[in-house]
């Protein structure tokens, strides 16, 4: 059943993404990296942390896209992930 919920969430997110930003097979690695960053930054198993991390990553990417270059948008979030994994391996809001 959890996989069913996941299926619907991932499918819905994919369709909305295509309608909002546009996407293609070249974006697959970036989308996985963003989800991975969000879940690890938020702390694995924390829904509140996941939401906060999603907004942190989303705004980091948006600012990078507008201020630097759209193609570099995933870089700051990945750098932040590396720092957080090193300094706070349980995530920004995860349980120890």
């Amino acid at each position: 059943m959890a996989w069913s919920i996941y299926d619907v969430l991932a499918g819905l997110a994919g369709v909305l993404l295509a309608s909002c930003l546009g996407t293609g097979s070249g974006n697959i690695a970036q989308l996985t990296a963003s989800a991975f960053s969000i879940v690890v930054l938020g702390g694995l198993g924390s829904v509140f942390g996941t939401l906060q991390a999603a907004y942190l990553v989303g705004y980091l990417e948006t600012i990078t896209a507008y201020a630097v270059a759209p193609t570099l948008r995933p870089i700051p979030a990945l750098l932040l992930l590396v720092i957080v994994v090193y300094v706070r391996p349980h995530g920004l809001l995860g349980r120890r």
Partner: protein
Amino acid sequence: MRFETRRRREESVLGVQILIDGFAISALYALGAIGFALIFGVSGVLNLAHGGIMVVAALIGWFSASELSAGTYGGSLLGILAGLLAAFATYLLVVRPIQRSRAIPREETEIFLLTGTLLWGIMIQTALAYKFTDNPVTMHPLIPGVVNIADVRTPRNEIMIAAVCWFVIGLLWLVINRTRLGKTLLAASMNPRGLTLLGFELSQIHWWRGVSTMS
């Protein structure tokens, strides 16, 4: 002086634009990432085919809407259905065989799952690039038109997408925290063995554990 005023105004508009776009994109990311976290909570699977599943839904939705004349809403529904099938295929063909394999030592299951889902994601990417294209595609907006928010022309579609994402996230939260089923799941995440002693079928609940551990 006039140039300075104009520059400040452009910066202000850009700031609002970033706030609005960032809000919608972050809501989309949250929706996808909660599913990703859910699966980790259920079975410790970090599904590295996640992006592939999202793009399957996106491309099938776009293809159905534009090439098969299913319309934007029909295409969206077909896209969600395709994403659902892709995720089930990931579970049935990759995750479950690895989890049930007796040849894989228990302590190595996670690394096999990471490798398996990564390779599966690459296969999905290659198949999609072959069938469709590497270039990004955009579906027609579900709601046409724009509104002005603090001098920034914002597509209604973008606002609707953020609202849908938050609605679905809220719905999931309500199911977990306000329903009998959700409370049972919460209990299961805290003490699965105790729940088994009370007569609940753990294999059924196990599917749901990830939801409850997230709350």
